[in-house]
C-alpha cells in the first residue's frame, strides 16, 4: 500500500518540492506549513510517516512531535531539519522520533528512512490487531 506521508516545514517551497518528488515515487504526500495545521491534519487522517521540521514559527517541531505522539502513537515521525544540535537531536529521539535527519539530504536516504518508518508502523499495527483478536479469543469473546 502507498505510504501516507505528511511533510511539515514552514518553508512552503521546500514542502511542495519534496511532496512532488515523493509523489513521483508513488507516495501519498500531503503538506503542511505550520505545526498547528500539522496536528489538525494528523488527528484527522492516519498518516504513516510525518516528516517534521524543528525550527518553525509558532509551535516548534519538538512540541508538534510530542502532540503527534500523544494523539497518534503509532505514526512514525522523522525530524528533517537544518538545525544540527546535539541536545535537540537526542531530545527528539526521547520524544519518540524515529530519526533526526539533517538537511540537505539525498532523496534516496530520505526514501529509505520513510520506508523503514512505514514498515515499522505497519508491523506494529499488525501486532496490535493480532493481539486484539487473540485477546478476544482468550477472553472467550
Amino acid at each position, binding site marked *: 500500500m502507498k505510504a501516507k506521508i505528511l511533510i511539515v516545514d514552514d518553508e512552503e517551497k521546500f514542502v511542495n518540492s519534496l511532496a512532488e518528488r515523493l509523489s513521483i515515487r508513488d507516495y501519498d504526500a500531503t503538506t503542511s506549513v505550520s505545526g498547528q495545521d500539522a496536528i489538525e491534519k494528523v488527528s484527522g487522517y492516519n498518516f504513516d510517516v510525518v516528516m517534521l521540521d524543528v*525550527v518553525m514559527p509558532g509551535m516548534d517541531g519538538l512540541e508538534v512531535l510530542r502532540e503527534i*505522539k500523544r494523539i497518534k*502513537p503509532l505514526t512514525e515521525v522523522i525530524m528533517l531539519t*537544518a*538545525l*544540527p*544540535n*546535539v*541536545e*535537540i*537531536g*537526542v531530545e*527528539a*529521539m*526521547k*520524544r*519518540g522520533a524515529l*530519526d*533526526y535527519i*539533517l*538537511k*540537505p539530504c539525498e532523496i534516496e536516504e530520505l526514501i529509505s528512512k520513510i520506508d523503514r518508518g512505514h514498515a515499522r508502523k505497519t508491523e*506494529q499495527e499488525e*501486532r*496490535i490487531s*493480532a*493481539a486484539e*483478536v*487473540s*485477546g478476544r*479469543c*482468550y477472553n472467550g469473546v
Partner: protein
Amino acid sequence: MFGLRQAIKKIFWGKKQKSPNPEESPDDAIRSRFKTKYWNFKSFLSINSAILEIMSEMELALRGDHRFGMEFIRAHCTSISVSIYQLIEKINEISGRRYEKLYYALADIQYKINQILEEREKSIEGKPVLSIKEINKDSANHTGSKMANLGEIVNLTDLNVPHGFVITASAYHLFLNHGDLQKNINQQLQSVDIEDIKMLGMASSNIQKLIMQSPIHPELEGAILDGYRRLEEKTEKDVKVSMRSSALGEDSQESSFAGQYHTELNVSYNTLIHSYKKVLAGKYSLQAITYRFNKGFRDEDIVMCVGCMAMVEAVSSGVMYSKDPGDIHNNQIFINAVLGLGKSAVEGSISPDLFVASREPTIKILKKEIHVKDQGILTFSNKELHTVELPEPEKYAPAITDIQAQFLAKQAVILENHFKTPQDIEWAIEKEGLVRILQSRPLKQVRKEDNEFKDTLAIKVNNHTILNGGVAASPGVACGPAFIVNSAEEIYKFPEGAVLVTKNSLPQWTTILNRAVAVVTDRGGIAGHLATVTREFGIPALFDTLAATDRIKNGTIITVDTYARKVYEGKAEALLRESPAGGISRIKGSPVYITLKRTLKHITPLNLTDPKGDDFTPDGCQTYHDITRFCHEKAVKEMFDSGKNSRGISAGKRLIINDVPAQWWIVDLGDGLKGSMEKDTVRLANIASAPMMALWEGMTAVEWDGPPPVDTRGFISIMVESTMNRDLCASSQSSYTQNDCAIISKNFCNLSCRFGYHYSVVQTFVSDKSGENYIKFYFKGGAADHNRKFRRMKLIKDILVKYDFQVEIYEDYMNATIAAYDQFSTLKRLKALGYLTMHTRQLDMIMGNPAKTAYYKKKFLKDISLWFPQAGE
C-alpha cells in the same frame, strides 16, 4: 514512549504464549521470537556501522588535509548522538531492557559535547564607544587589534594617527542581540553547504540584508552619534570619517583577514548608522565567509568592532613592510606608494610604485620601481571623494619623493621596534607633508625555508613561454587550465583546480582561492590584500604581468612559475617535478580544528577494552565509542545465548544431502534460502547464507584420514545418520535436544552442532561492511578425561590464535572471537572453523600421545593453509 513500546511488546509476547491458533506450535513461537530478535540485531548492526563510519569521518577530518567548518562538527556530533540513542534503544529491545543505564552514559557525554559546541564568547562588558585616546594594545579584546594598535601608537609614540573612535565589541553584541538577528543569521548559515558557492552566495546576501534591515538599539545609536560629536569637537564641524572593520581575532600573523571586510569612506553624520551596519554586514560577504571557512574560524570567533577615523586629505598613500614579506632573513624595508587614497593600492587595481630601503647602517633607498599612472587617482578634498586624471607629464613621476620614502622607512622601523615584531603598515601623506599612520599590524613573512628560491631557469623547459615578467606575489610552481575571470558573477563558474587569470588583483578574488591552484594578473603589487592571502594559502601568484588576460587563452592548460616569473603553455613536466607541491594545510590549529579535537575526546577514545573487566558496565562508558563497544558485545552475546537455547528448534527445514535427509535443521530468518524447495526440506543449493556455506565448505573440504573413528561410521555417514533415526523427526519431542541446527540469513549464521559428546556453537555475521563482521565460537565437552579435554582445547586454541582469533579457555569450555575483519578474511576463517569442528571431534583417543598430537596439529595447520595461501595471513 517506553511505556507504550513495552505495552505493545507485552501484547505481542502475550499473544504468542497463549496462542489461539492450534496450528502454531511452541516451536513457531521460539522461532518467531528469535526472528524478531535477529531483525533487531541486524538493524543494531547497521546502526553500529553507521556510528563507526561517522567516527572515522571525524577522525579523518582531524588529519587536517581538508577544510571543514563548525557545521561539519555540529552535524556529525548530532548524527552520532542520535545514532547512539538508537543503538541504546536496540540493545534494550534485544535484551529485554536490560541496559537502560546506558541512557545516563549518553546524557553525560552528550552534555559535555554540547558544552563545547555551544560555548559562546561571553558577552563583553564595557562601553559601546571609546575614543582612540582611551585605548591601547591591551584593549584588543574589546576594540579589535587594528584599533588597539592605533590607540597604542597615538598614546605611546610620537607618530601621527588621525583622530577617531571605535565602536566596540560590546556594541556589536548589543546590535546582534537586539531582536532575533543572531538567531536568524545562524539559521541562514546552518542550512548552507559551504562548498556550494551559489548557495553560499544566496545565504551571504540574505544575511547582509537581514543586518541592513535590522533596527539599531537606541542606546547604541545614541553612543555612536555622541562619539561623532566628540570627534567634531576635536577636528571640525561636519568632519567626514572612514569606517573600517577592526574585528576581534582578525589580525594575527597566521591569518591576516587582509581586505576581507568592508570599508566605508567619506561618511557623514547622517550616514553613520547606515555605514556602521554596512561594515558589520561585511562580516558575511561571500569572500569573508569563505576566508573564515578556509582558515577554520568559527562564525562566533569574529566579533566586528568598527573604527571611525577622520578622513585624511592624502596626496599619496600606501602600504609598507618593515621587512621583506617574501624572506624572513631580509631586513630591507618595502614601501608601496600610490597617488591619492591608498584604497587602490590594497585593492590591487593599480600597480603601486615600489621603494626598497636598507635599514643599516643608515636608511637608504636601494631600489625604485616607478609605474605609469595612467588610471584615475582617487582623492579626498573639500570633504568629497574625486577621481582625477593626471596631465601627461605627471603620469611618469613617482608617487612619493626619496626623502618621503626615507622618512616612511624610519617610521616603519619605529613601529617595528615598538611592537617588537615586523609590521605591515598603511600610511598616508597629507598636503603639508604630514605622515599619518592608518594601520599597523604584524607582518606575515614567508619562511625562507618554504620559499627557497628555486633556480628554475636552470631547468630546461620545452614548453612555449606565454608570459615573461611581473612580480612574484606568492612563490611556487603550479599547473592547471586557465580560467579568466572578468566579473564577480564568474566567481561562481570557477572550476576546482584551475589557474585564476584576471586583470586586477582584487580582494574579492580571495573567494576563489580555495579552488585555484595559481593566480596570474595583469596588475597589482605584492602589498595588495590578494597577495597577502595567496601567501597565506600557499598558492603561487604572479602579479603585474601586464598582458595575462590578453595572451592566455581561456581553458588552455598553463604552467605558472613565479621563480622565473614565467607562464608556459601546457604542462611543464620537468618544472613541476622539481618543485614542491604547493598548498598549506590551513585548518590545523585553527579554532574549528581545536573544537573538533575537543569534541572527539568524548567520542572516539576506547576505554572499555576488556569485556571481563570491572568497568565493562554502562557506568564505565566514558565515550561514544565505549557505549558502542559495550552494546556490540552485549548484542552479540544476547544473540549467541538465544542461539544456544534455540538449538532445539525443529520448526526449520530438514537438510537433504545426496538425497538423504541429514540430521540438520535449517531455520531461515528471512533471506537465508533461495530457489524452489519442498515445504519441509531444503537442499544445499537452496542455501543463500554465505557464512553457512563457508562453514560447510570447511567441514567437507578434507576427508577425515585419522584413526578409525570411535563409532566406526564414515565421514558423511555421521551427518547423514538420520536415515537410521527416523524417529528424529520434527514432531517428535526427542528432536528438541538432539539435532543440530543452523539459524541462517544471507549474512548471518548461528550453527550449533553436537557430534557425539562435543558441543559447539558458531555465530557469525558477514557482510561487505567490515565493521559489522564478527565470528564467535564456543566449544565444550568431549567424553574424555579432563587432561585430554584440556589438551584438545589447547590444540584448537593454538590454531585459532594463529589466525588472529582471541581465545579464552575456562574449565571445560572455550570462547573464541574475532571481529571487524573484511568479508573475504572472515569467510576464510569460517572455513577454518568448519574444518576444525569436524576434524577435532574424534581426537580424544590420540590426545594421550604427544607425538600424535604434534602430528595432527601440523596436519591441521597444513590443511587450513589451503585457505590462507599467503604465509602469516
